[in-house]
């Protein structure tokens, strides 16, 4: 009976609707005013009826034309809309409510865009406003100090150089190279540019300091074209990128068209890069006298007469009247120059919700402060969205093309060894000319390098609404990059040394070519189902997906020595035996296939629970280790939605989050799992295939795996005056690969294993404060900081300690030690300087003084702690000391606006990091060789030993023969380990928006002029040149590229 009643009632209702003859069905879409992202879950109310928007922000509602639509959503200002005319397809722009703005950022969680209310992961969104007005080739430079937990260090001033990026601490402890050129394996986050995933860690086929055209993906896109950068930090946020996301994921979206009228925006700035303070050096006469004095007093015979004889035998020292040797040339001034540079960006966008477009053209030209270095970049990007009014489908297409030209000068990669060497040539030599002693100098000026990289990234995304709550999305993308570098060295400039070819005393011309072609394909298919039940109380969103990425890289190198002619550059003939050619590094053809699903449930937007699971197979997984399974679980409690919080009016919003999850990154190469074969000779007339016995295959090889726990709290108080976001995480990094020596009887020398693991834990805090918000004057502040600590937890074969790079050329190995920070310096503990001969300890048995390399020490020599008490300082006296990783990083940002003026001050800081001041060591080492034609840097400011009895900090620099023999100024000593903490004024920007009344007369919508200073001021106790210009292993680089200061003047005009 009751059922019947219900049916009758329903029928009645229907008929009532039918009776209302004027009612029409109105369709519409609700989007964010700024980001143009669709907003899900907006309540749309007409009278007493209501509905919510779906995941595409769409709604339909039946209403009469006289009624008013009310839109409301927590983080946005309420809005009403009255239908006009006969429109029935609406687009509503909701304006965010500043007080709750932190909650209305739309974040990507997995493959679905969600409002932050429902997102359970930890992520940060950086918008175009945060990175504007600063000319930079690399986006990473603009993000420094803005994202808590992301440690960005601009460790080279080379235009377009890769910055070092660590998200939530170390992800690898793999060290390659040696000496000051040793580097830590790159573990930068996966970058997704307009849907195209690009792994920034793959372009290392050339190594760190070798030639090649390596380009960071963060330099591919002009910063002016970026709408936002989403930085996904914890496992929940990363989950769906789990096959490559363990180092973090950054999603970069370029701007999109939205205004009905075409909008043309032009941003231009001219900037000056200025040379920082360089090394002071002694000029001309002082240099000569110092060297002669050194030889007389401290030659190996300790004899004045012998010294005079030695000095006189060197015309370069003794023949001071010869004009060739009678100069005072400041070589550095020939290499380092202030440069004028420019940056232009033009974008055209327009369209309406059903079809819109954007085209962006960019030109960036920055000449490096070192002669003959620089980068210019031409970019063209466009995207378009087509979404017919039926909203049944949506098509998004984007393409970003880029052509960069780089000049590395005579340096390669990050280093400028050529300039560093020739910049320190003796001042007494004549300045550069076609005939000069200093051919490295000419090489730096004259060698032309043709180094181009072309990149095209294209992406196509197709959305289809199958049923009301069921959507299908297919996405495909392709990235292609081709790098080429050709360099010709005429014979008189060919030292060959930078390419490890021995060229002899009379070198011939040389032609070098590098080429690299990379292709990346990516496809994913997602099926999404969303449903709300019971008056929006329950909300379920779920999706299943598959994704496939293919990565192919091939690179070749030719070093052709002995070209017949100095004037016709090209490989027209070469000396076969002295040349090198072939593939460069390991050609790659790797695939990753993954599939999985995700379910998210929300109760009244108050409690959110999300579970996801993905299964990944990578082509560098061992065939027997199978697919890896990566689950994630996360929750969020939106505290402020609780009833008991309704009367707490000083809290705008507050929520707790928690997540656990597992992600991987493939590591190693195909040789690690299958071994390496090579064509042998013929055996009994048959071709043979040999097996390389160097590395044994490991069929159980695993990817680098991250297991992370994250807890978070975010809240806003006092109507947007104050907001806080706090995260704590504990992340284990497991299965790190390392080749372990195995017994020779196995036939192989070593085997790749997955036995290293470590833990990162830390805290991240971000505070947003708005002390003043008046009509004319606003002041916004952001203070953020992150603490990170890493601990090594496992080593191969159950070892507790491992010295890596034990045979390092500069004696600078890295120590892995269980329970300690993952990377530890291993060096001599310097305790001062022996005041006199009698202070040197004597072996009671032999009567010999303490010795180094067989040389007894004397007054003025360094005191290295004799750890084992054998009166001999050798490698067994090294101690584990220092942590090259910064413990605390962060920044603070102040934005002030007054009427049309605005000012922004952005600081970043890095604290508690041990840096090896190798430039200072190198400065003293210049005194090792008074016979060589190199200049002497100024050391007057240092407290060094001068006479017996002196209590000094630095050993006697003039005692060259002894110093060289005992390596007094060796890099690997605590004397040169300093605290590398610093505060840096990243940018200062002052801008003025022209009055709209004035500019509308010349048909401009907006116009702004701005002045920006970049890298203005570094406050630090560090005594080296720059505590930021330091490698990830905490080693300063005597041959590094200094970071320039930049001053820029620009305009931003919209038509």
């Amino acid at each position: 009976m009751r059922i019947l009643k219900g049916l009758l009632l329903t029928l009645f209702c229907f008929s009532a609707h039918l009776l209302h003859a004027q009612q029409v069905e109105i369709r519409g879409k609700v989007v964010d005013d700024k980001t143009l992202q669709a907003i899900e879950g907006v309540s749309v109310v007409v009278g007493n009826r209501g509905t919510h928007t779906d995941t595409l922000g769409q709604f339909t509602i039946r209403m009469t034309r006289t009624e008013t639509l009310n839109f409301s959503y927590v983080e946005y200002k309420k809005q009403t809309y009255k239908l006009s005319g006969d429109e029935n397809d609406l687009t509503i722009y909701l304006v965010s409510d500043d007080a709750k703005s932190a909650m209305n950022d739309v974040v990507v969680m997995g493959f679905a865009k969600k409002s932050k209310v429902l997102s359970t992961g930890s992520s940060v969104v950086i918008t175009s406003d945060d990175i504007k007005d600063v000319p930079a080739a690399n986006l990473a430079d603009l993000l420094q100090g803005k994202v808590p937990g992301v440690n960005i260090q601009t460790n080279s001033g080379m235009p377009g150089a890769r910055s070092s990026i660590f998200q939530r601490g170390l992800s690898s402890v793999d060290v390659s190279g040696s000496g000051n050129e040793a580097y830590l394996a790159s573990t930068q986050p996966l970058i997704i540019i307009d849907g195209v995933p690009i792994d920034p860690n793959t372009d290392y086929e050339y190594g760190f300091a070798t030639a090649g055209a390596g380009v960071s993906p963060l330099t591919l896109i002009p910063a002016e074209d970026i709408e936002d950068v989403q930085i996904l930090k914890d496992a929940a946020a990363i989950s769906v990128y789990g096959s490559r996301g363990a180092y973090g994921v950054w999603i970069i979206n370029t701007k999109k068209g939205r205004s009905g009228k075409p909008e043309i925006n032009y941003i231009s700035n001219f900037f000056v890069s200025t040379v920082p303070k360089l090394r002071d050096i002694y000029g001309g006469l002082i240099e000569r006298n110092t060297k002669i004095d050194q030889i007389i007093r401290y030659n190996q015979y300790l004899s004045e007469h012998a010294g005079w004889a030695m000095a006189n035998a060197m015309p370069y020292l003794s023949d001071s009247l010869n004009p060739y040797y009678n100069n005072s040339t400041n070589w550095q001034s020939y290499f380092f120059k202030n440069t004028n540079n420019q940056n232009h960006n033009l974008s055209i966008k327009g369209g309406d919700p059903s079809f819109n477009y954007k085209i962006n053209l960019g030109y960036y030209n920055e000449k490096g402060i070192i002669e003959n270095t620089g980068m210019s970049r031409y970019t063209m990007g466009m995207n378009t969205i087509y979404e017919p009014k039926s909203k049944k489908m949506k098509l998004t297409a984007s393409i970003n093309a880029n052509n960069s030209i780089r000049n590395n000068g005579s340096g390669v990669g990050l280093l400028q060894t050529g300039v560093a060497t020739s910049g320190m040539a003796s001042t007494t030599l004549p300045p550069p000319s076609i005939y000069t002693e200093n051919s490295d100098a000419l090489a730096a000026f004259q060698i032309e390098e043709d180094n181009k990289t072309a990149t095209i990234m294209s992406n196509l995304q197709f959305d289809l609404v199958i049923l009301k709550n069921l959507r299908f999305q297919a996405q495909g993308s392709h990235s292609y990059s081709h790098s080429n570098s050709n360099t010709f060295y005429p014979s008189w400039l060919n030292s060959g040394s930078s390419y490890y070819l021995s060229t002899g005393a009379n070198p011939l011309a040389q032609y070098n070519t590098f080429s690299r072609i990379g292709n990346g394909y990516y496809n994913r298919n997602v099926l999404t189902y969303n449903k709300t039940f019971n008056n929006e109380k329950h909300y379920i969103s779920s999706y299943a997906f598959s994704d496939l990425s293919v990565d192919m890289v091939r690179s070749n190198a030719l070093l052709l020595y002995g070209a017949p002619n100095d004037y016709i550059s090209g490989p027209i003939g070469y000396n076969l035996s002295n040349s090198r050619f072939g593939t460069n590094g390991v050609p790659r053809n790797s695939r990753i296939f993954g599939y999985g699903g995700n379910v998210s449930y929300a109760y009244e937007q108050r409690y959110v629970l999300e579970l996801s699971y993905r299964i990944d197979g990578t082509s560098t997984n061992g065939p027997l280790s199978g697919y890896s399974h990566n689950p994630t679980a996360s929750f969020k409690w939106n505290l402020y939605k609780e009833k008991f919080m309704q009367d707490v009016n000083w809290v705008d919003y507050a929520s707790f989050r928690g997540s656990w999850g597992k992600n991987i990154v493939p590591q190693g190469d195909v040789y690690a799992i299958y071994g390496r074969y090579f064509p042998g000779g013929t055996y009994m007339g048959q071709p043979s295939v040999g097996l390389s016995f160097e590395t044994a295959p490991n069929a159980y090889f695993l990817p680098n795996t991250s297991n992370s726990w994250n807890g978070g709290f975010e809240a806003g108080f006092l109507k947007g005056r104050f907001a806080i976001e706090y995260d704590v995480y504990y992340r284990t990094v497991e299965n790190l690969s390392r080749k372990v020596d195995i017994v020779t009887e196995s036939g192989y020398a070593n085997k790749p294993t997955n036995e290293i693991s470590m833990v990162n834990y830390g805290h991240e805090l971000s505070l947003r404060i708005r002390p003043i918000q008046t009509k004319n004057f606003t002041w916004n502040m952001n203070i953020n900081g992150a603490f990170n600590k890493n601990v090594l937890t496992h080593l191969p074969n159950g070892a507790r300690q491992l010295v890596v790079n034990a045979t390092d050329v500069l004696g600078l190995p890295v120590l892995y030690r269980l329970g300690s920070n993952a990377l530890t310096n291993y060096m001599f503990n310097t305790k001062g300087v022996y005041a006199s001969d009698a202070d040197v300890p004597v072996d009671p048995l032999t009567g010999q003084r303490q010795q180094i390399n067989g040389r007894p020490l004397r007054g003025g020599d360094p005191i290295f702690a004799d750890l084992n008490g054998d009166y001999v300082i050798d490698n067994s006296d090294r101690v584990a000391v220092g942590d090259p990783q910064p413990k605390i990083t962060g920044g603070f940002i102040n934005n002030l606006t007054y009427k049309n003026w605005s000012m922004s001050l952005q600081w970043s800081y890095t604290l508690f990091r041990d840096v090896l001041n190798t430039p200072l060591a190198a400065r003293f080492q210049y005194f090792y060789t008074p016979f060589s034609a190199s200049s002497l840097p100024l050391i007057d400011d240092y407290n060094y030993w001068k006479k017996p009895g002196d209590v000094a900090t630095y050993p006697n620099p003039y005692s060259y023969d002894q110093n060289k023999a005992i390596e007094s100024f060796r890099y690997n000593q605590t004397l040169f380990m300093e605290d590398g903490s610093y505060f840096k004024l990243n940018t200062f920007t002052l801008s003025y928006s022209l009055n709209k009344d004035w500019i509308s007369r010349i048909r401009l919508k907006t116009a702004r002029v701005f002045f920006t200073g970049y890298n203005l001021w570094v406050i630090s106790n560090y005594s080296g040149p720059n505590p930021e210009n330091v490698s990830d292993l905490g080693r300063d680089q005597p041959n590094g590229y200094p970071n320039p200061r930049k001053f820029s003047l620009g305009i931003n005009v919209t038509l």
Partner: protein
Amino acid sequence: MNRIFLTAVVVLMLVAGQSCKKQLPRQLDTIDRAATFLSTNFSPILGRNYIARNPFSYGQSTLPLEFEIVNMRRFNGEPAPELTDDIYPVTVWKTTGAGSYTGYETSMAEIEAKRTIENHRIFEMRKGSGDVVVWGDVNTSKLITRPDSGYVFDVKVSNSGATRYFYNLRFIPYKPIPHDPHNYDLNTGMASGPALNAGTSGISLLNFARSKDNVAMSAGEVDVYFNKLVGGPGNTLTFKFLDSAYAPINPKLFNQTQWDRLVHGFDMKLTDTEVKYTVAYPIPLAPIATPFTNGNGSRAAVKFAYYRLGPGGFGVTASLGFNFAIYQKGDWEIAFHFKNTSPKFTND
């Protein structure tokens, strides 16, 4: 409600701050499983300072390690109190403050100021480095020497995180030989003859002529005697030259000899039969190159020279060079015996 909210925030912060640190491994010192002694047999000649450097290969161990000899015993398993219990006063160099021996000391007192007496066992292992040390300046007569199998001992190697024992290292010393060069049999301690011939002594002659027939004299015609005299003060060194009849030759005939720079000795007494110095033993005092030693400081180097007009009236400087070391304190006499004929000192 405010209170609940604030409490929740504080609790979360505390929990977060104290998370999971207990799960991490402790930082401990370690001894590499592959660490081992590279040499396990130590066979020094007794009576002289001996050091075997870096006998231990520490691999990936945490340094410094601590070494300790345990269970020193004779080869047949009997205890060896002469090594474990007996303590001897040993002359050692002062480690700090005095400076090292340079060869430029101008008096015995100055040398002795750099040395001091310490008590040591004969056979020791340096605590930090594992270097094996045998002190020479002691009476080693109690020790069992070759051809006996000597001693066996174990070594305890430890640091703050680990301890390992290495078993059955051997100490098989040779009998003390007081000087170098020598003609003793190391196993029996017996000399093969009273004198060292040129092949053993390594003596070098330059431009010597025989007085008998004015023919060039070869090194094989000179024997060297090491004699330990009794009854002296115990710190002298005497050089003598003997003719074929064992009669002394006047050392003053070696007129080009730099007597004051011959050895690092003092109170030189040059007589018609011998030259005598007060010296500090051992000779050389330390393996340090000085004007009185050979290039690496392992032996003292003496050179006796004279000038005469040779054939055709050309001036000739003749010289006799000899490198030696004496490890035992005493009144030593080194005699050069021209066994066929005396050298010719007169002009041609």
